[in-house]
């Protein structure tokens, strides 16, 4: 709260002073369990244009359309959803790789979506990313040492020039690679090893938040577990907060403290891992969980699966009211006119049940689906 009042005072102050204040705020530590990142009504619309010279906007792809969540210090927030639901766009917005159309991302109480210059650089140091594809996210013409050391070129205060090689070797050691590999090129490594290089690069600047966009989906099954274990070890060691975006629900459950389910640019349901997996109240979450193949042939005979019909509608022209209504078996007239808000369903309000967590459905109710 102290930081919040600081911003209020700074409204009239010269830009430079605001910047200083923001940077000072970014350096302040956050207690474990306090929110480190607060996302408020984040919106990203990609314009659809017509014409070559005089581009007219004829519509917008509403990739992210009003998403709000908190990330607490030291926790892992999993984000799941089908492709095209906007989860990767959220990652890009948090990384400030895309400019938000509207909404706020508060990092330690400061809105970072409109920052520039030194303050922006300071935030970027603290929020890093690990990408999905370890084959295309590493430059094939740079050595591993150059790849992991590149963040130090941009932020020289983290490691003085003479110290860099040693620092890079330390990082290689931390992620379980041989420090002697520093002069090798990415093609000399396997997929799992490359992902370790990507993680080492993400760790280089001692960030507080790491956003992982499908970090293990390109890896072989036997190697996935190794990388997941490494990420959990690093979280404890460096006190990191993760946003873990993935479509593999069993892995998300394993690593996450809380899970958010996204559908067509909106959050459908957020709760702790047990709330989401054992007591889902949103029909989409229920369908998603029931569709996951369970690695146990014994359950296949007596297992009820909810198979959704059709595909995700186009985000350029989302359905009115509730976005899930076109594929939902509970949909009624009200769903087409009134958009359900992400709130604790009224029927569970004030009750001490695991179903009492936020869910954006008019007819939220518990349904037992076989958890992964």
């Amino acid at each position: 709260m102290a930081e919040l009042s600081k911003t209020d005072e700074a409204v009239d102050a010269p830009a430079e002073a605001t910047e200083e204040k923001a940077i000072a705020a970014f350096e302040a530590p956050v207690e474990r369990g306090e929110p480190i990142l607060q996302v408020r009504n984040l919106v990203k619309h990609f314009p659809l244009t017509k014409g070559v010279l005089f581009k007219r906007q004829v519509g917008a792809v509403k990739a992210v359309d009003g998403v709000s969540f908190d990330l607490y210090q030291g926790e892992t927030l999993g984000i799941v959803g089908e492709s095209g639901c906007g989860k990767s766009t959220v990652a890009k917005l948090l990384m400030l790789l895309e400019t938000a159309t509207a909404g706020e991302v508060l990092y330690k109480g400061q809105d970072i979506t409109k920052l520039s210059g030194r303050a922006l650089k300071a935030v970027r140091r603290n929020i890093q990313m690990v990408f999905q594809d370890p084959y295309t996210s590493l430059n094939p013409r740079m050595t591993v040492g150059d790849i992991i050391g590149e963040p130090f070129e941009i932020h020289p205060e983290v490691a003085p020039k003479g110290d860099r090689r040693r620092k890079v070797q330390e990082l290689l050691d931390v992620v379980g690679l041989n420090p002697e590999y520093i002069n090798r090129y990415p093609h000399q490594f396997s997929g799992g090893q490359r992902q370790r290089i990507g993680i080492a690069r993400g760790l280089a600047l001692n960030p507080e938040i790491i956003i992982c966009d499908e970090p293990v989906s390109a890896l072989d099954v036997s190697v996935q577990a190794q990388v997941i274990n490494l990420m959990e070890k690093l979280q404890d060691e460096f006190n990191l907060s993760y946003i873990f975006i993935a479509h593999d629900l069993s892995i998300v459950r394993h690593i996450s403290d809380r899970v958010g389910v996204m559908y067509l640019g909106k959050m459908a349901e957020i709760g702790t891992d047990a709330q989401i997996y054992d007591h889902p109240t949103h029909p989409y979450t229920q369908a998603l969980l029931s569709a996951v193949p369970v690695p146990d042939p014994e359950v296949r005979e007596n297992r009820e699966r909810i198979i959704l019909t059709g595909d995700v509608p186009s985000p350029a022209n989302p359905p009115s009211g509730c976005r899930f209504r076109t594929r939902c078996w509970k949909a009624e007239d009200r769903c087409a006119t009134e958009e359900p808000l992400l709130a604790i369903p009224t029927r569970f309000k004030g009750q001490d049940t695991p179903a009492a967590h936020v869910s954006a459905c008019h007819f939220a109710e518990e349904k037992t689906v076989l958890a992964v």
Partner: protein
Amino acid sequence: MTTSNLTEELPAQRKGDDETPVLEVRDLHVEFKTREGIVRAVNGVNYSVKSGETLAVLGESGSGKSVTAQAIMGILDSPPGRVAKGEILFRGQDILKLDEEERRKLRGPKMAMIFQDALSALNPVFSVGNQLGEMFRVHQGMSKKDAKLKAIELMDRVKIPAAKARVNDYPHQFSGGMRQRIMIAMALALEPDLIIADEPTTALDVTVQAQVMDLLAELQKEYAMGLILITHDLGVVADVADKIAVMYAGRIVEQAPIHELYKRPAHPYTRGLLDSIPRLDQKGQELYAIKGLPPNLLKPPAGCAFNPRCPKAQDICRTDVPALVPVTERDGAELVGRASACHFWKEQIHG
């Protein structure tokens, strides 16, 4: 919305072939000549599929599961690849001895393949109707007009909405799940006896994956086809397969009926794969991980290919390649369809 149950009963077998499998692969060896040397991608694979049966071939990338399928279909890139040894019996006839024209007549009417990435497997410059109709025009000499009607019928069959209106659309105009349905329609066009599905749902979301697997299971049952499902997903396998072959470094390391394999794996690699699935009661603990990396097939390790990663490896594992031997109960009773290529399978299965 529909709720469904994938396996109500085993599909009725086609009459007269209860005993002979549709396809039998015997001691298949495939190698690739590269500048660095000969890569032995498949080293003596044996498996068989009966009508109406689903065989899952499970393995990591580079284990030779797709190369085996390519050899069966006769679409191996050769050179550099070639079948070095072995037999592929289709209804008792060795198809490796057939000439290219005869092989071609098999592909489509007798056996068909569904590929992983439908966008790159379909031709982007022809409409889907044209590509579906090609099966009928080429193999049955049908006219363009009739072939298009057949294509619409097929698209209806795989539940593509508004098939008539979409028959002239191009592959990029369809979503991933719809494209995969078109691939399935194409494979089914001539009602083959055998379908090989190479990672058919890996590129799809879970909700769409469930739709596609459901459709595949339903059609397989209807036509009583043999299905070889190539995948690395232990969940998908558990849902649909009747029996399973686990491949590692070009060899089958374990073979078993589906229920048996998940209950009592007889090979340390299978054990490792099953253990590395995150389970509820392990939350917050370290996941079991198979250490190390899959082997480089240019320089496969001596002895058992899994020995550098195996927690139970002994001296014999580093020198002798274990044969795929039948697995029995503790008292010697036969376990039908089970085999393991581990020197210590007894210890693995019986503790």
